[in-house]
C-alpha cells in the first residue's frame, strides 16, 4: 500500500524528528525502502532538521569506543561478495544476463588471446568491463557512461586483496568505448589485487595519489589464467 503525499510529508517529518516510534517507525522504514518518494522526503527532512545537531556541545567519547569499532571492522577487500561494499554486486545480480552479454560481445571482439583477468564494474548497473591482456595492456570498456561529469575525471584503482591503500591505474574516459592503459602484467600495482573501483576526481585525477572523491562503480576481479 502506498502512502498519500500528505501522509508521507507528515510521517517523514516525525520520523526524522524521532517522534515516530515503535511499529509505526518500522512500518514507515519499510515504506522508505520500497517507495522512492518516501525515501526522498525523508532525505529532505534530514537535510533540513539534522544540522540542528551542530549546536550540541561536543563530548569526547572514551578511547575504548574506537578500539571496539576497530575490532568489529572487517577487512574490506578480503570480504566475499556480500555485505556493505559489495552489496551493489548483489544489486546487479538481476542484471547478470546483460553483464554476460556485454562480456561475451567484449571477449569476442577483444585482442587475441585470453585476458589474465576481467572485472565488471557496476553501481546499480554495469558501467564498464576491465580486462588485463598480455603483454602489457589493460583495456577499460565503458558500457554506460555517466552524465553531468564534465568537470571531473574518472580514476581507476586496484584494491589490494589484503586491504591497504588503493593503487591508481590511471584515468578512464567517460564515454562509450575503450580506454587503453599500458601496464605490464607483472606491474606491482596489479599483483595481489582482488577488486577494481572507480572514483570521481578533480580534472586530471586525484591530487593526492589516493581517492579523494566518491566511488562511482566497483567490481571483483575474476582471474582467467595465470601470467
Amino acid at each position, binding site marked *: 500500500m502506498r502512502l498519500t503525499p500528505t501522509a508521507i510529508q507528515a510521517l517523514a517529518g516525525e520520523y526524522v524528528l524521532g517522534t515516530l516510534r515503535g511499529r509505526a517507525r518500522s512500518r514507515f522504514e519499510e515504506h522508505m525502502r520500497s517507495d522512492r518518494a518516501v525515501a526522498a522526503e525523508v532525505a529532505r527532512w534530514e537535510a533540513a532538521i539534522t544540522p*540542528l545537531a551542530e549546536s*550540541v556541545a561536543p563530548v569526547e567519547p572514551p578511547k575504548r569506543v574506537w578500539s571496539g569499532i576497530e575490532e568489529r571492522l572487517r577487512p574490506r577487500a578480503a570480504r566475499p561478495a556480500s555485505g556493505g561494499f559489495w552489496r551493489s554486486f548483489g544489486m546487479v545480480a538481476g542484471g547478470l544476463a546483460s553483464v554476460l552479454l556485454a562480456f561475451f560481445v567484449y571477449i569476442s571482439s577483444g585482442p587475441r588471446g585470453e585476458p589474465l583477468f576481467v572485472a565488471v564494474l557496476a553501481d546499480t548497473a554495469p558501467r564498464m568491463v576491465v580486462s588485463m591482456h598480455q603483454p602489457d595492456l589493460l583495456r577499460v570498456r565503458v558500457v554506460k557512461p555517466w552524465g553531468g561529469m564534465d568537470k571531473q575525471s574518472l580514476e581507476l584503482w586496484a584494491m589490494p586483496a589484503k586491504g591497504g591503500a*588503493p593503487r591508481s591505474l590511471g584515468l578512464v574516459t567517460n564515454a562509450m568505448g575503450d580506454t587503453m592503459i599500458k601496464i605490464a602484467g607483472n606491474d606491482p600495482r596489479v599483483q595481489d589485487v582482488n577488486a577494481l573501483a572507480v572514483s570521481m576526481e578533480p580534472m586530471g585525477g586525484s591530487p593526492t595519489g589516493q581517492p*579523494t572523491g*566518491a566511488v562511482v562503480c566497483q567490481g571483483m576481479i575474476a582471474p582467467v589464467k595465470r601470467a
Partner: protein
Amino acid sequence: MTLDATQARLAGLLAKAALGDRVAFAELYRATSSKLFAVSLRIVRERPLAEEALQDSFVNIWNHASDYAQAKSAPTTWMTAIVRNRSLDIVRRTREEPDVDDALSVNLVDESAAPPREAEARAEAHSIQHCLGELDAEQRQTIALAFFHGLTHSELAEHLRRPLGTVKTHIRRGLLKLKDCLMRTGDVERG
C-alpha cells in the same frame, strides 16, 4: 549541493573508507566522534548506551560508506542521521519507564533559541535555527525536546504537562511551519 572545506574533507575520508582505507576512517572518527557522541548521549542519556550507539553507528558507517555517494547530503548530516536512528533504536529497547525530568539536565528553551555556537556553523544549521526561531515558544520547545532528547509523544506530554493531543498538534504544526520557512530560505526543495 555545495560542500564547504570541512565537509569536502569529510566526504573525501568517507570515499577512502569506502575503498577500505582504515587510516582515513580513523581520521573521520577523530573529526566527528565527539559531536556525534554528544548527540547520542542526549537521546540515550547514559554513557554506556551512548558508547554502544556510537560504536554500532561507526561500524555501520564503515559498512555503508560506499552508499554515501548516493546520499546527496553533507557528510555530517548523513552520519548524524545514522547515529540518531541507532540511538532511538537503543532508547526504544531500554527505556521502559520514562523518567524524563530527572534525566534532563540541559536548559532546553535556551538551547533551542541559541544561535549556533561555532563561528563556522554551516549555512544549513543557520537556517534551521532561524526557522526554529519563527515558531511559537511551545512549538519550539516541543520540537527541540523531541529532536535533542528523543522524547516520545507521551514523554513530551508528561514533561510539558500538556495533553497528548496538544503535544501532537504542536509537533505537526511546528514541523509544517518549519518546512515552509526552510523552503522560503531555499534550504529544502519543494517535494
